[in-house]
């Protein structure tokens, strides 16, 4: 090449800055284990110092996790096999008890107050959806831009079978807190969660069968198309040949809450089992199940087939992985979790409207997966919780902080989708593997494994 690289000092400042992440990365690559360990320690210490400035309980929590991570190898040999359960146990206990101490945590710098329970429920629901999308995008490497369709399907399933929508039919089965004379179909929401998941899975298969043959970016567009069609059917569904399926733009409300025994999640029972706490623990249970299944699926035969397809479709096919069936399963399982999450969310909000299911939600969930780290369940859960928190209450608080600090008068939530867009672009440019990457995915993204499709001769010849 004719142009030679200018020495660093004579490069303009923006080029020096733009090159920095790449430079750090190449330095990191050149290090041996000991050096990397030192850098790791320094970075983690810096993180703790930063979090201390944000809020000390958060810093304490993260510091605890880091101590566990480094302390694990020093456990007595007898306890070694249980070491890997240490982190999940601590996290589960801290989160389970969250309703009892969150009010006394004070507030965070910049980020404002700790999330209230209602926000936590939304964060949990988004975490479920993000983990579901992660199966499609992160494991199988199929870009799905219409994930909101599955969310809508789940929400409408629970809306049909646990509300007064079909007032001409009367069917009560296990619903808690619904008067015996209420018209309409009322089935226990817990059963409906499963039903919603299954129905959505079927929808996922139906969408997948004709489209999964397509190449990556075409698939993305087709899923986007489905993601637009389904909400439009919901919007126009109040008169499908004279039949009112979805109640049109007015949505379906009220939807029954879930219940246990005689305790209805909406009214709660006494000062301990309040409504918010019940919904919070409910979503926690679902998130735990989702994460567990997702992890087990990843390590199963099917999950390994997904990862094989993501890494190299041609090689996977040559090894005997049935492409269509494996991809369709990825779609169905991803859709299943999306449906369950949508159903629980609708039951929590007691309503579902066609306006809730725009493309923005799909892209929002996608940015959670990308920010957290495609393929890594923990990263995705973190990304989902963080972005959902920002969306629910954090962004407004950040706006207050920003305006107070810089004396401006910006309405920050107005810029929210610009901010998400910026997050997506910056993540892809600077750290395409996400904040908490899976080692495998990181290697792929940096070594440039090409997802050349099968039978693409142009790609094969290169």
């Amino acid at each position, binding site marked *: 090449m004719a142009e030679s690289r200018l020495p660093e000092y004579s490069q303009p400042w923006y080029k020096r800055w733009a090159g920095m992440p790449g430079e750090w990365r190449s330095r990191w690559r050149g290090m041996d284990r000991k050096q990397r360990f030192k850098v790791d320690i320094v970075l983690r210490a810096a993180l703790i110092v930063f979090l201390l400035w944000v809020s000390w309980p958060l810093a304490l929590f993260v510091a605890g996790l880091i101590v566990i991570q480094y302390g694990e190898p020093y456990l007595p040999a007898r306890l070694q096999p249980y070491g890997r359960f240490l982190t999940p146990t601590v996290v589960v206990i801290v989160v389970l008890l969250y309703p009892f101490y969150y009010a006394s945590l004070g507030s965070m710098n910049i980020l404002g107050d700790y999330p209230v329970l209602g926000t936590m429920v939304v964060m949990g629901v988004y975490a479920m959806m993000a983990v579901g999308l992660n199966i499609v995008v992160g494991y199988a490497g199929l870009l799905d831009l219409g994930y909101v369709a599955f969310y809508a399907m789940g929400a409408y399933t629970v809306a049909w079978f646990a509300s007064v929508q079909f007032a001409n039919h009367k069917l009560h089965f296990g619903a808690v807190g619904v008067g015996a004379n209420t018209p309409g179909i009322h089935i226990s929401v817990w059963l409906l969660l499963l039903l919603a998941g299954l129905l959505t899975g079927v929808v996922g298969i139906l969408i997948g069968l004709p489209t999964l043959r397509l190449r990556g970016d075409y698939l993305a*567009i*087709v899923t986007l198309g489905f993601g*637009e069609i389904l909400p439009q059917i919901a919007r126009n569904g109040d008169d499908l040949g004279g039949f009112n399926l979805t109640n049109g733009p007015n949505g379906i409300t009220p939807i029954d809450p879930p219940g246990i025994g005689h305790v209805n999640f909406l009214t709660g029972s006494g000062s301990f089992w309040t409504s918010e706490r019940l919904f919070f623990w409910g979503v926690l249970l679902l998130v735990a199940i989702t994460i567990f299944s997702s992890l087990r699926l990843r390590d199963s035969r099917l999950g390994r087939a997904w990862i094989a397809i993501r890494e190299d479709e041609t090689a996977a096919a040559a090894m005997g992985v049935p492409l269509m069936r494996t991809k369709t399963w990825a779609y169905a399982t991803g859709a299943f979790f999306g449906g369950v999450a949508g159903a629980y969310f609708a039951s929590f909000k007691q309503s579902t409207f066609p306006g809730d299911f725009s493309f923005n939600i799909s892209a929002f969930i*996608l940015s959670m997966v990308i920010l957290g780290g495609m393929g890594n369940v923990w990263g995705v859960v973190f990304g989902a919780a963080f972005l959902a928190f920002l969306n629910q209450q954090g962004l407004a608080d950040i706006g207050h902080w920003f305006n107070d600090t810089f004396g401006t008068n910006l309405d920050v939530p*107005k810029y929210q*989708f610009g901010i998400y867009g910026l997050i*997506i672009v910056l993540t892809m*440019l600077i750290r395409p593997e996400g904040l908490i990457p899976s080692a495998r995915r990181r290697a792929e993204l940096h070594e440039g494994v090409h997802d050349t499709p099968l039978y693409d001769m142009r790609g094969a010849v290169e």
Partner: protein
Amino acid sequence: MATDARSEPITRRRGFQPADVVPWIGLLLVALLVFWLIVNFVKTPGDFVSIALEGITLGLVYGLIALGYSLVYGILELINFAHGDVFMLGSWISFAVAAQWLNLGPDSAGATVIGGLALTLLIAMAFCALLNASIERVAYRPLRNAPRLAPLITAIGMSFILQDVGLNRLGPAPVSVPNILPTGAVFTIGGIAYPWSSLIVAVSAIPVLILLVWLVQRTRQGRAMRATAQDQEAAAMMGINVNRTISFTFLLAGSLAGVAGLLYALYSTNIQFDQGFTLGLIAFTAAVLGGIGNLPGAVLGAIIIGLIQQFNEGLSWHAPGSDWTQSIVFAILILILVFRPEGLLGERTPEGG
């Protein structure tokens, strides 16, 4: 030739194969569509013709956007998601220049309108071209060797950013643009007038399309573009500056989006911050329908989509109506990708199917 012999199936399949039905389903759908059109034509011929004219006008505007998708896809094999939003910002800047800065309106004199619109056109084209090229520079070029989904994801991110800019400039509600073009009737068919504004929009789209075809087919730069689209490495070895050619393609696509933005603002007299998303997808569908990467195909597909949209919203006999326009367009997109991924004019490549 040897290749011919190889393309023959080695074993002849016997009996019923599900895949055999697929083309027939496609033909059946097309036949139903044609039947529906004929019935409508017989019932209300006047309406039919004027709606068709409006459809072609709208289709030409879509065509300008679809060409932007097609150009970029042809050269980078990237669906430039942000293109629709560049078009939206083109509408916005046309509105800002023509209606707010130059104060053009229904009462302006003829010469003022022509001069003002020419200036607006130049500004909109330059703005969108630069915007599109800088998006390529910032968001796509660093990822040229990354897995192919990476630039697609940044494209979505850029689309979000631009849409947010539009939201903050235009506000959440639709903004109405004054009738700058004359709205009187050119001619009247079956009681429905075809206004001058539509005619002007249609007539001004055509020279742009011809210019584009000339540029791609006949000039040196166009040849460089086609060479880069075929094989970047070989093009580079032949002395073509690949990066500059790609930048030029984005400039070209952006300026088309600028023209489309102005024409759309004049034609629909209503602009909105999310028009880039909806119309962008419609235009993308048009590009796929015609065969993506194929420039005449994009225009043809756009005219077909414009016709279908107007027929759907305007015809009286069993038309689903404007509530379903988006669903119909996306259904067409899905059906095309399933039945004929190479599009109407595209050649069959292994990539789509």
